[in-house]
């Protein structure tokens, strides 16, 4: 049991530790469901979601976070997003779409040797700010970018 504890990740995400335990065969999936941050994912509004996720809604804008997303998304169902940060001791990255009914799209707990870099593809309901939040050294930092989602033309 002790050796498993030592593999727990830094940071607040208990769900992360449970995730490790699942793959180690210790926990049944049903327990994972309990630990998945449901309240954060169902919160409406970025601040509310941040509070549920990290205990605080206070994130300071940072130029050390690079958020790469298209200016105009070709298709709102698949918008490629990349978040990278040079902030030291980053433990967690989260990505929000401010105008989605539930803004939190995903949250990533970084292992000790893992770079503050994550890329994925997200769904956007309409034109909105995409917000990236990095938790490092107990503080929250954010960057955002507006991504336009359009109605297609003849091909859309």
């Amino acid at each position, binding site marked *: 049991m002790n050796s498993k504890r030592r*593999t727990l*990740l830094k940071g607040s*995400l208990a*769900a*992360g530790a*449970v*995730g*490790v335990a*699942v*793959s*180690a065969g210790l926990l049944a*999936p*049903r327990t*994972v*469901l309990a630990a*998945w*941050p449901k309240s954060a*994912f169902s919160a409406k509004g970025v601040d509310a979601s941040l509070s549920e996720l990290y205990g605080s809604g206070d994130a300071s804008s940072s130029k050390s976070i690079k958020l790469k997303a298209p200016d105009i998304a070709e298709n709102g*169902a*698949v*918008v*490629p997003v*990349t978040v990278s940060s040079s902030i030291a001791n980053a433990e967690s990255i989260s990505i929000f*779409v401010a105008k*989605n009914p*539930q803004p*939190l*799209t*995903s*949250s*990533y*707990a*970084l*292992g000790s*040797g*893992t*770079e503050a*870099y*994550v*890329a*994925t*593809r*997200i*769904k956007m309901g309409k034109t909105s700010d995409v917000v990236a939040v990095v938790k490092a050294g107990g503080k929250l930092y954010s960057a955002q970018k507006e991504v336009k989602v359009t109605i297609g033309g003849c091909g859309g």
Partner: protein
Amino acid sequence: MAKSIKVRASNKKGLTTVKALMSHPMKVEKKDKKTGKVTPAHFIQTVTCEHNGKAVLTAEWGAAISANPYLSFKFNGAKVGDSLKISWVDNKGENASVDAKIK
């Protein structure tokens, strides 16, 4: 279900870049406006990436991650030939896992 997670992991000067593509519908909950029938959400909730038994990344996902989800991240401490394990669990309790070689 082995092929339901495709992984490309390459190591350059000690930094491993991982790209993964997972086969999953990632459905948002839908309510039919006319009939009121609800189609429940079906999406991957947690993705765990491990190297040498240690979690290098744990992703918590919602239904707003696109269908056939893509994930990329980078980590230190591995070398060419090492194994990387990526597994996911979805909100229905289904799961999948794959072991990939770092090239």
